[in-house]
């Protein structure tokens, strides 16, 4: 007799957005699916026929955690479409702004969302109450560093409005840049501590398995901008050709789209960046990678948490460096478009992985949009890992559904999924 | 009361709380500082600013007699943020008070004349102070009539207090008329306050009239009074506006027109009949 066994996590806590997980265990197989119950928001429909300035102000509302990438990436796409050449100073400020988001997002994810799992508590408040206050405060400090950078450069940390096509409404004053530099310096040791913390936990072996990692090939150093996409097994293609390589599917149980590369699930994010580009990392982070080489494990999704911690160290150093290069910051005019129509492509590395924007503009009006978000890219891979986790535990004789539920939640969380992003919408 | 900051508040302790109606409560208060409590004085028709830290500050008319030293009463209707919180207070609790503010009724002018008081709804609150003052100084005034009106019987403010006075009032030439406009259960008089002016014991030729109620009622009350022969120069009303300071600064209570621009808080709240009719916007 076949008994259908189900494990359900109705509402996945401590992630951005609303989703559940259904795992169905049959005699001979196991099937996991991430059920995204969040409503669709149709960003590509609502930005259509708007002026591009207005459209780029709408995109960040796709997701608060990665609002900055959702601002800077479409800006890049518009600039590509209309041949706008931002100044060197603008580029530096943008990178700084972007990294501010990176640090904030990683700090939030690691300290407030993941650490409670590792310590067996339900939230960071409980962590704080039970003597982990120092650690929570470290996390909040690092989150504040990121938020401050976004506030100084972007006008606020959620939905920064100061970044616009062609430059910035207002260039931040030198003193504020110096403050950022100082804060980043103060945060560095805390980020190193985070790396040490995560290096104390072994990865669950149930989710071991080979996988393909995709990331950009940065223009410069271990940066977040580029126009070429590379894979851990040696493939590469230009962003303009993304449609030929990355497909998206729709599943009936989810408003999120699901990415495939060469017909197979793949992964993106901090671990993928490290797998593909760790040679470009320098400084303290490089030392830590060498010290904890085995934690940069390309075959286990839990490595993503560790990779985020490493990145925090690296990006804080990079922030200091960028800020120091901006000591002679000055007011600048905004770069103007060379033409009024065109197609533009952009890809950047958001905290959770690659983010792709395509925008078609006619006479300043947005006519076509396509957005592919990291969460949509890694969803199928995540389901594979969730199945493996459930199956492994089940086969080892664990029967407590709540226990299994917690474990599979941890798998999902390690990806740092961003449900709002995945649900925003993309054209088929 | 001495303070170098006009917005400075003095602690007052709530001594008693009575529920008058579902929405109105009467609070008996005393300044914590006994020097202030004993020396503090006011004129009927004046108001105080009542403050609750964290919630806000509002103007409230004093409704007790100024003759009663050391204590004063406020009758407060629960209508919003501050008044809601005040209604939660118990005897022993504190509020901040500053004032008294406003001009008040010209009680000295009223002396040796009859007094007709016409109240609609919450309008009875400031008029109670006038009434109590007149009763406390009974020998200074002629006949007195109070017309207290409300929509429903159970909304008539100070109804029981006025009823209880009936016998003694009769002996003292005080007439108390209580009337309601919408209450089918009510067994007493019905109709709007102005419809009972004819029943007052006051002599139109030698009376002062004080009116308080919703501004929309004023014109019709004026017409009835003048019809009945009352002297327009001796008719007074009190007005209400939003107010933040009570001392002519915040600008919210400015009313009137270009030739007669007044602060309700310091030029009023009591205004004469001719001020009202010659100034668009005042009511």
């Amino acid at each position, binding site marked *: 007799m076949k008994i259908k066994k189900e494990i359900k996590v109705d509402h996945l806590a401590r992630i951005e957005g609303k989703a559940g997980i259904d795992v169905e265990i049959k005699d001979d197989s196991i099937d996991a699916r991430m059920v995204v119950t969040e*409503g669709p928001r149709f960003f590509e429909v609502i930005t259509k026929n708007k002026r591009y300035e207005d459209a780029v102000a709408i995109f960040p509302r796709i997701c608060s955690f990665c609002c900055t990438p959702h601002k800077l990436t479409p800006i890049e796409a518009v600039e590509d479409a209309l041949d706008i050449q931002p100044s060197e100073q603008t580029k530096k400020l943008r990178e700084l702004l972007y990294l501010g988001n990176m640090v904030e997002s990683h700090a939030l994810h690691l300290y407030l969302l993941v650490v409670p799992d590792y310590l067996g508590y339900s939230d960071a408040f409980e962590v704080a109450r039970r003597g982990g206050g120092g650690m929570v405060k470290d996390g909040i400090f690092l989150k504040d560093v990121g938020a401050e950078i976004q506030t100084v450069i972007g006008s606020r940390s959620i939905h920064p409005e*100061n970044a616009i096509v062609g430059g910035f409404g207002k260039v931040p004053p030198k003193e504020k840049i110096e403050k950022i530099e100082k804060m980043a310096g103060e945060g560095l040791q805390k980020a190193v501590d985070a790396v040490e913390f995560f290096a104390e936990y072994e990865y669950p072996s149930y989710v071991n398995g080979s996988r393909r990692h995709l990331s950009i090939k940065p223009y410069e150093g271990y940066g977040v901008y580029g126009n070429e996409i590379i894979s851990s097994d040696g493939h590469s293609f230009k962003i303009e050709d993304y449609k030929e390589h990355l497909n998206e599917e*729709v599943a009936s149980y989810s408003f999120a789209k699901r990415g495939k590369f060469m017909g197979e699930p793949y992964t993106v994010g901090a671990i993928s960046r490290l797998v593909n580009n760790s040679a470009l990392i320098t400084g303290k982070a490089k030392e830590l990678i060498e010290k904890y080489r085995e934690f940069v494990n390309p075959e286990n999704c839990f490595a993503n948490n560790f990779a985020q911690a490493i990145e925090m160290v690296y990006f804080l150093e990079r922030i200091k460096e960028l800020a120091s290069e901006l000591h002679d910051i000055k007011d600048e005019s905004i770069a103007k478009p060379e033409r009024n129509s065109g197609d533009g492509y952009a890809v950047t590395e958001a905290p959770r992985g690659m983010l792709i924007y395509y925008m078609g503009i006619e006479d300043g009006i947005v006519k076509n949009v396509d957005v592919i978000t990291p969460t949509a890219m890694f969803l199928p891979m995540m389901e594979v890992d969730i199945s493996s986790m459930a199956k492994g535990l089940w086969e080892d004789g664990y029967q407590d559904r709540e226990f299994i539920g917690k474990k599979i939640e941890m798998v999902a969380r390690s990806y740092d999924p961003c449900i709002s992003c995945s649900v925003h919408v993309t054209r088929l | 009361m001495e303070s170098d900051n006009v917005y400075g508040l003095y602690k007052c302790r709530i001594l008693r709380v009575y529920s008058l109606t579902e929405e109105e409560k009467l609070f008996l208060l005393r300044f914590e500082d006994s020097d202030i409590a004993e020396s503090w004085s006011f004129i009927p028709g004046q108001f105080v600013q009542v403050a609750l830290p964290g919630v806000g500050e509002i103007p409230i008319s004093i409704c007790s007699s100024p003759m009663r030293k050391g204590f004063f009463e406020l009758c407060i209707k629960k209508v919003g943020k501050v008044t809601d919180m005040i209604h939660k207070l118990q005897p022993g609790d504190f509020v901040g008070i500053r004032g008294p503010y406003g001009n008040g009724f010209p009680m000295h002018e009223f002396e040796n004349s009859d007094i007709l008081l016409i109240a609609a709804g919450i309008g009875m609150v400031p008029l109670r102070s006038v009434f109590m003052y007149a009763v406390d100084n009974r020998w200074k005034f002629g006949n007195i009539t109070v017309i207290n009106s409300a929509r429903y019987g159970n909304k008539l403010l100070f109804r029981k207090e006025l009823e209880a006075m009936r016998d003694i009032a009769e002996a003292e030439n005080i007439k108390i008329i209580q009337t309601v406009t919408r209450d089918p259960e009510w067994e007493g008089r019905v109709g709007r306050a102005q419809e009972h002016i004819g029943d007052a014991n006051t002599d139109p030729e030698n009376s002062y009239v004080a009116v308080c109620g919703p501004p929309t009622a004023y014109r019709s009350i004026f017409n009835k009074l003048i019809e009945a022969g009352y002297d327009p120069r001796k008719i007074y009303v009190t007005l209400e506006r939003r107010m933040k300071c009570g001392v002519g600064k915040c600008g919210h209570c400015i009313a009137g027109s270009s030739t007669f621009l007044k602060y309700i808080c310091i030029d009023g709240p009591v205004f004469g009949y001719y001020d009202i009719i010659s100034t668009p916007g005042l009511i």
Partner: protein
Amino acid sequence: MKIGIHGLTSCYGCQLSMAVVKRILDISEKFDIKYFYMLSSAGKIEHVDVAFVEGSVSTEEDEKELKMIRENADVLVAIGSCAIHGGVQGILFNENVEYEEAFRTVYGNRDMEYEGRIAQPIDKFVKVDYRLPGCPPEEEEIMYYLATFAIGSWPEEKDYPVCAECRRAGNPCILIEKGEPCLGPVTVAGCDARCIKYNIPCIGCRGPVPDVSWFDSLAMTFKEKGMDREYVKKRMAIFASRYEGLNEMIDKIYGD
């Protein structure tokens, strides 16, 4: 005091802004947080004194959850533009795009187990006691709202536009000076005119001033500055798609 913090369909920015206020740890001590799924796996929907709800109603599930939240809360506060006005996703409503059409454009000819909807503000379904506007709300206002509830009172909502704060802040007016399409005059204050401080014309992210947003007068001003109807309409509708009479007000100025 027991509180719950909930999210329907949105970018989760309002919850995030609540999660990252500087004094979040003080809040967690002062208030008994019964529900905050973004930050905590403890908690189910149970009776609370105040429930904060972010996001628009965009699925059946959203509606069910919202009603459950309402039944269990003494006071319900709508936070952010999505909950109060339907959010940017509400633009579809203003542009008369049917759900089916939007869905097909995006997901193709597929059937879903879940039914989505055109986003709606939460007061279309339940009674909302207070509104905490913003996209996302400002830290200062979040703290103010929480504090007034903590002392047993309630917050005073703002009823005036961003311009007032723009002047208080000492900014130059970019609508007058540069003729840029600033929506400050019709957008409810509370952000201290942040964007204008950065020389960016307000896009109205906090939503219209309740009941007294003069889109018609502003359209008149915009028209005089040479902006065309389509542009004005689209820009005004980003955060105000559900403002009553919006399209009519604009049409009145531009003629039919």
